[in-house]
């Protein structure tokens, strides 16, 4: 049994996840800032974003990008190949192991947009967990909203947010399999399994091997992270 396809698949999944995680954390932090801001329409935008993407199955989001986007604007490939993501430097990262596949960009886009809603909720739950006396004390000292958030709330909030954020990232790792199964990324762990199994020569024995391979690939990423989070959570529970 050749192990190379699994290693390649693992690397592509990892690449997909790291790119989407960076995107989702950035976008999610931005949306969270919108959701707690003192200006009502900004709060509205943040809330609308979260409500929209939390209640939509990721499958539908991926369908929209992978099958809806190519129907648009056939002329200059702006949408069909998501070329607006071809930002210099970033575009080098967005070519998984040297291939240029638009579906990879769609997958990064949909995972980022979907996960950002959950990142926002995790950060907001962290902000809510800080006792209100802290913010009131800061306000009574005359700190403005930004100062309050930056010097008082955020340094405490991230500690509460880290465990929920971690579980969001774990969920995202697992969700990335969907991009391989449905979004047509191909070459990632799930896509590898799919293409290996559609091979007519594959028999019963290799089926189990394929599953052992991809399960191991995902478990290597998710289980240690989960155990780490449990540790952090227990430590936090004792400290509180």
């Amino acid at each position, binding site marked *: 049994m050749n192990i190379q396809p699994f290693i390649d698949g693992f690397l592509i999944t990892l690449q997909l996840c790291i790119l989407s995680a960076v995107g989702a954390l950035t976008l999610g932090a931005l949306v969270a800032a919108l959701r707690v801001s*003192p*200006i009502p*329409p900004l709060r509205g935008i943040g809330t609308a974003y979260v409500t*929209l993407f*939390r209640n*939509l199955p990721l499958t539908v989001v991926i369908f929209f990008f992978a099958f809806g986007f190519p129907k648009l604007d056939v002329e200059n490939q702006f*949408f069909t190949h998501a070329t607006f993501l071809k930002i210099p430097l970033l575009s080098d990262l967005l070519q998984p192991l040297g291939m240029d596949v638009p579906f990879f960009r769609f997958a990064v886009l949909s995972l980022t947009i979907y996960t950002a809603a959950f990142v926002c909720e995790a950060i907001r739950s962290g902000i809510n967990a800080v006792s209100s006396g802290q913010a009131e004390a800061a306000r009574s000292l005359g700190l403005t909203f930004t100062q309050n958030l930056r010097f008082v*709330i955020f340094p405490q909030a991230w500690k509460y947010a880290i465990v929920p954020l971690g579980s969001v990232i774990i969920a995202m790792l*697992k969700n990335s399999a969907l991009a391989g199964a449905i979004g047509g990324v191909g070459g990632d762990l799930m896509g590898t399994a799919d293409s290996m199994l559609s091979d007519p020569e594959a028999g019963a024995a290799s089926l189990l091997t394929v599953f052992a391979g991809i399960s191991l690939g995902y478990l290597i990423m998710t289980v240690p992270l989960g155990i780490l989070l449990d540790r952090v959570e227990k430590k936090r529970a004792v400290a509180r």
Partner: protein
Amino acid sequence: MSVLYDVPGPRGRLISWIVTIGSILVVAAGLIWGVYRPLAKPVTDSMWDLAPGPEGQFTMARWGILIDPNNESFGLVWQRLGEGWLATFTAAALAIVFSLIIGIGIALLRAQLRGVRGRRYTNRPPVASALLRFATYSGTGASRFWVEFFRGLPVVVTIFLVYRILAQYGLDFEDQMWFLVIGLTLYNSVVIGEILRSGMDGLPHGQHEAASSVGLSIGQSIRLVQLPQALRIMLPALISQIVVIFKDTSLGQIVSFDEALRTSRGIVEFFGAADSPAIPMYFMIGVMYIVICYGLSKLAVYTERRLSRSGMPPAPPAMVTMDQTGAIS
């Protein structure tokens, strides 16, 4: 009114108004030129030409099958969509019921095993006591492995695994739905088991101490005292997980089960590339999912409020958020 900022003064109100108007303009411009224009008119040179073009997405040729009752395909499309949603609801209901039952079973088993851990069974003959201790250890290990394995695996992989491996060993269902239901149950029962376990862990120690002091056995204490309370405390998290199960039924694609999403994909492919109704179709499906899931999650918020009023101890904070953010996972 949040605790994070004061009631705005005159300057604050001015800034607020400016940002309000600015953000409304930015959002409107974004919606018009970022979403509407590319959809309505993909090929034109003028930026200000906003009327929907014939090759754009806002044509009756694309939307007619969904919104025009006079369209010849209207009735058929909605009939197929209705069948698709019915299939989605059936699969979701079955997966939810099975996940809850098996999840409660897993929680009971793991709590029971934890309760008898380290017990030496000195009142039994040596062979029986050794066997019982061995059974406890191996049961603990096996259930731990089972939980970690299925919790760590993407639900997509689980469904795919069920589909391919069961088919390999000749277990073939008439209805593809069962592959989806079994796959979802495998994953979600484990997650529900963990939710309930953390709910039981979060109970005050006095609960099981009181239970054993009135002479209840470990099993009785779990069944009669701890589990009912855990179910109530964790109700919001359980409802969130039910929303997750509902969302995950959209994975029917993998096992070629015709639920709502796959049905609509079939319809899109049926109408071909020329006037493809892809955007209207997926838009419709998205709206329906949002409405249903939003309703369900409002129910979660409502029960959370009811529970916090009724003097139950609150759920362990990190756990609730974790499961609400557990996403499609």
